[in-house]
């Protein structure tokens, strides 16, 4: 039996506010098996980053996890003390945050920022630290690593900054890496290079969770995909099945958009309607207002995740369970 690096079960993240609570992550369950790359895809604001932050234990106040379990290699992360969590971050689980341009400290040298991770989690002697960083810089394809070591972030291009961030995330060989929109802020040629680099990050006993709104990125990197809409997983499947046979009307809409236009920006225009505000979700399926085949039942009753094939689940009333 293959084991899972990451297991999330029924995760709820809630932001209380004066106008009532919103839940950007609503009953999300997902698995990242060892040696695999798993993707979360969905429109802006659907809760992808929030799910990742929940795993890192870095949800900004006043948001908090209200329910659910997160297990990393079998360890329940919600039971960790803050101190234990700190020793986990960067060494067992690391995250590449969404904005490479602003994710590095502007007053620290790039090399020192990577070195910091080693200082925090290993006892590699001072004299070897620099060499380690230069080695990892070379591994992530940074040219002239000795020179870049002493550069400040503003002296590096977006692609180089992202490589520095990737170096930072992988230098301690964490079991799980989370990459939040690793290529969105980069231009197309650099995107391709970074994607190639990311592909090599996974080994037999580690896992990679990739977050993107871009199905193209997901297709290039992932073995398994979760489609997220308004805080909920609406479809999950291995990558080939998803592209061959998308079931959820939302997934179909995403596919059509990519197929016909090959441009992310127009994704929304091909799915009629807008994403509902998280504070005013319908009682039933959150997609029903934009769905062509939406019925009364869809509006009132929340569909469960229905198994439609091996490893393929869809949250939609229109689906029939496999074998029925």
């Amino acid at each position, binding site marked *: 039996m293959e084991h899972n690096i990451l297991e999330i079960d029924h995760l709820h993240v809630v932001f209380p506010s004066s106008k009532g609570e919103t839940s950007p992550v609503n009953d999300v369950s997902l698995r990242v098996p060892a040696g695999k790359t798993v993707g979360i895809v969905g429109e802006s604001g659907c809760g992808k980053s929030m799910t990742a932050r929940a795993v*890192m234990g*870095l949800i900004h106040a006043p948001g908090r996890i209200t329910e659910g379990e997160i297990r990393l290699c079998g360890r329940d992360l919600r039971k960790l003390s*803050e*101190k234990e969590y*700190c*020793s*986990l*971050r*960067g*060494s067992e689980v*690391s*995250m590449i*945050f*969404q*904005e490479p341009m*602003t*994710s*590095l*400290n*502007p*007053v*620290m040298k790039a090399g020192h920022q990577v070195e*910091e*991770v080693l200082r*925090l*989690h290993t006892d590699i002697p001072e004299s070897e630290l620099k060499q380690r960083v230069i080695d990892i810089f070379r591994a992530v394809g940074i040219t002239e690593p000795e020179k870049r070591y002493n550069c*400040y972030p*503003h*002296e590096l291009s977006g692609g180089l900054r992202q490589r520095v*961030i990737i170096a*930072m*995330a992988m230098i301690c060989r964490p079991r799980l890496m989370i990459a939040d929109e690793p290529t969105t802020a980069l231009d197309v040629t650099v995107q391709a290079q970074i994607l190639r680099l990311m592909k090599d990050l996974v080994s037999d006993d580690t896992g990679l969770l990739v977050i993107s709104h871009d199905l193209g990125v997901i297709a290039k990197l992932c073995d398994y995909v979760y489609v997220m809409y308004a805080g909920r997983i609406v479809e999950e499947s291995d990558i080939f099945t998803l592209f061959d046979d998308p079931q959820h009307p939302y997934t179909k809409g995403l596919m059509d958009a990519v197929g016909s236009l090959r441009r992310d920006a127009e994704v929304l225009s091909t799915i009629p309607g807008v994403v509902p505000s998280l504070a005013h979700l319908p009682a039933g399926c959150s997609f029903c207002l934009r769905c062509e085949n939406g019925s009364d039942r869809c509006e009132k009753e929340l569909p469960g995740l229905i198994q439609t094939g091996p490893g393929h689940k869809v949250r939609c009333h229109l689906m029939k369970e496999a074998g029925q």
Partner: protein
Amino acid sequence: MIRNICRRLGESVIVLLGVALMIFVMLRIVPGNPVATMMGEHADLAVIERMTAELGLDQPVYIQFIRYITGALKGDFGTSYSLGKPVSFLMGTAFGNTLKLALFAALFAWALGIACGISAAARKNGLADHLFMGVSLMGVSMPIFMVAMLLQYVFAYHLHWLPISGINDWRGFLLPAVALGWNSAGSISRLVRSTLLDILQEDYIDTARGKGRTQAGVLIFHAFRNALLPVITMMALQFSSLLSGAVITETVFSINGIGRLAVQAIAGRDIPLLEGTALFTTLVVILGNLAADCLYDILDPRIRKEV
């Protein structure tokens, strides 16, 4: 960077000359003859005229200015009308005292302001936050002389821990320094807090947390370093206001400093002494700003590499 510093030095000299000229001209266009004031009501008109000529006050202003500057460059700032001694001599001791007082006060203000600002930001809306921000509001809004007298009452008069006035040793400086630095500590702690809270929203803070830094580690190693930039500018400005505050503090604690000298000079229409004190205060303020600029360059790599 060296070039940057040289350029700033050049600018500073020009500013200093400009200020000197302004002070000089202003003191000469105010009505009334200082010599007449000095000699008293019953002085002979002929004597006054002779004295005026002797002091060079009958010459055109620009000639007087050039004379003054050439003298100043040689360390000669004229002779005090009211005290009858060379201005450079009078300022020598006074300047040392004021500078010590201001430095002590600045150290106190910076240390307290930064410590309180950081601990307030560490737990926004926590106990320390409310306490320090409440006290610092008092700090910024309480006049110096009140703080000074309060300190004198509690620590000198009541507890007998520290001398009530005078500066025979370093202990004498403690109360005046605290009184003088109190206001600055208040505003610095507020600035440190708000800057830190802003910076804690930045993306690179998340990155640092993601590396495994603790909340405190992030605050000190990542946020504070970035917060220093605006705080340093403020500190330099605060240093100038410390110097003006010194006038009151020196009076309350009977310290023989520039501030007290300036007050005497104004009261006695003692032009050379007034010019001297004003010029020196300007010099210190300019040097403070210069130091802040240079420090800013060193701390901010984005500026360091330019020109």
